């Protein structure tokens, strides 16, 4: 993966250290620092960072002026403001010069990381970093005729290794037609390689391609690698099933015995259509890379970020009373002001149902959901809620045409979104007004889950998060 350049601009050393520590955990980033606006401009001119994290109040030249100059000269540079200043007018001014995000201190590391990862994906998509993953071009050296989707594991740690291992073994178990007497060898080879590579580099990718008869597991390494003797023996044992070329190690697994005549009809259990949602854009088309292979329900896999937000657990329960006492001030007022949006939420939805149009979808998404997201983002604590609303908004805009054309879908969407509005009203009451919730995070994951559920219903998808979706009987 191509490294992206990130510039951290803050006059306070401690803040730079905190941001540096947060960003260091993100893959494939080169990081430099600047201590004021002037130095930020100078480094932008000389080093061309893709993303800049910018403070506002700084000596010599403040973050607003510096951002203005940078955006004029380098409009594609992504600027994320991180400031202790709570000033709605400043926020508007920043937006007017093209600043991409505005976050408040104290720094919410998860939010910063989340935003950065999104921006990094955006930059990479613009730069066509994943053109090698085009469905028209295969990575595996065995077969050019593969299905129009790929599954990609970007592995950075042992957890990622486990995810891949579990996926592979599950895939084998669930496909009785899969015949590979040497799966154990493949697992051993890949695990050893992953361990070896992750010691030297921060990341490796495994790309899964499928034809009708075979699955190809391709490990893409940052550089060519020399195999240890034990691994060379495994590769030899795998014979024609494994190819090692420069920085590529590829293994093929047969979905049926190679001795039988391969034909699609012979596969008793056709592969489920898969939507790859891990936000790996292709040719800069972003979400358009999603390829639906069937008229039937598609499978909506839950990606790692979503899973993390859904399953996040807050070990220490924070009572609402305690939380509200701690925050106070402008942020609280902003949340209370959301009450004025309650009517608008219902009214714009009613208009949308009676007059379905792209304009009315945008009016609801930008004018209602967007305002909520900004207010919730300022609380820092409720990343899942903000993410859920943003995702729902993106889904509504992305699927606008289909939704507008289908009155029954629109009706269900409006009904469910109206319920989401009620849930948010109740959330505001329990947390900020009555302050009676024993845990301020009581709604977070559930709300996110509801938003995904709405995508499932309206987008005609089946949600599947590995085995999580099965009922576990006791």
């Amino acid at each position, binding site marked *: 993966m191509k490294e992206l350049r990130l510039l951290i601009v803050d006059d306070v050393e401690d803040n730079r250290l905190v941001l540096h520590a947060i960003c260091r955990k993100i893959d494939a980033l080169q990081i430099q620092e600047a201590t004021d606006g002037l130095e930020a401009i100078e480094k932008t001119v000389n080093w061309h960072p893709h993303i800049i994290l910018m403070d506002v109040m700084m000596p010599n030249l403040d973050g607003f002026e510096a951002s203005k100059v940078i955006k004029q000269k380098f409009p594609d540079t992504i600027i994320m403001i991180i400031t202790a200043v709570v000033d709605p007018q400043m926020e508007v001014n920043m937006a007017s010069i093209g600043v991409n995000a505005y976050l408040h201190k104290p720094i919410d590391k998860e939010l910063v990381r989340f935003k950065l990862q999104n921006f990094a994906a955006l930059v990479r998509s613009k730069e066509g970093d994943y053109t090698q993953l085009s469905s028209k071009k295969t990575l595996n050296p065995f077969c050019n005729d593969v299905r129009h989707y790929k599954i990609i594991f970007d592995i950075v740690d042992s957890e990622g290794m486990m995810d891949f291992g579990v996926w592979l073994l599950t895939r084998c178990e669930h496909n009785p037609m899969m015949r590979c007497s040497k799966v154990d060898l493949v697992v051993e080879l890949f695990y050893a390689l992953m361990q070896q590579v992750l010691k030297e580099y921060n990341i490796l990718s495994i790309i899964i391609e499928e034809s009708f008869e075979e699955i190809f597991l391709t490990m893409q390494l940052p550089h060519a690698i020399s195999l240890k003797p034990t691994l060379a023996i495994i590769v030899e044992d795998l014979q024609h099933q494994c190819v090692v070329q420069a920085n590529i190690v590829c293994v093929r697994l047969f979905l049926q015995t190679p001795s039988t005549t391969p034909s699609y009809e012979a596969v008793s259990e056709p592969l489920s259509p898969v939507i790859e949602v891990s936000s790996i854009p292709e040719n800069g088309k972003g979400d358009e890379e999603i390829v639906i292979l069937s008229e039937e329900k598609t499978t909506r896999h839950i990606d790692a970020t979503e899973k993390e937000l859904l399953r996040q657990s807050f070990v220490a329960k924070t009572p609402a009373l305690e939380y509200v006492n701690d925050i106070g001030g402008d942020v609280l007022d902003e949340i209370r002001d959301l009450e004025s949006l309650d009517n608008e939420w219902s009214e714009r939805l009613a208009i949308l149902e009676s007059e379905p149009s792209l304009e009315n979808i945008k009016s609801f998404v930008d004018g209602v959901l967007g305002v909520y997201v900004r207010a919730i983002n300022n609380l820092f604590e409720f990343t899942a809620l903000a993410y859920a609303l943003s995702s729902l908004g993106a889904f509504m805009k992305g699927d606008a045409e289909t939704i507008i054309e289908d009155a029954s879908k629109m009706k269900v969407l409006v009904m469910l979104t109206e319920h989401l509005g009620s849930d948010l009203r109740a959330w505001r009451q329990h947390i900020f007004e009555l302050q009676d919730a024993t845990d301020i995070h009581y709604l977070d994951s559930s709300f996110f889950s509801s938003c995904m*559920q709405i995508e499932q219903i309206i987008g005609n998808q089946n949600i599947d998060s590995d085995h999580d979706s099965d009922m576990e009987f*006791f």
Partner: protein
Amino acid sequence: MAKRVIIVDDSRAVVATAELALDGLIQSGVIEFKSYLNPLELLNALENGSENFDLLISDVNMPEMNGLDLSRSIKSDERYKNKPIIILTTESSEQMKMTGKEIGVTGWMVKPFNDEKLVKSIKMILGV
């Protein structure tokens, strides 16, 4: 006779999505569906005998009362101790599932749920 299925979840959106998932069973008269947003309200209705159920679907994290505590209370009542309860939650920690198992809940399903799998499990539990 229709089986009475109750869902308790503080989120109206979750209740609505569950109702949509079970719409086929409701429309065909196989089940009757009732929802509670407040677990205390359900508990009260069960205690005074104005409510009953053949299957209870409960969330875990609710502002008024935790769904596992609710299940424990219901299971401690002779009238309901053999009635099936399934937990429908975003929580998936083994420790929590273990608590559910100890309380005597029948099953555990994580949200977002797969419509077909929910319906299939419910049909299996109710024997319909």
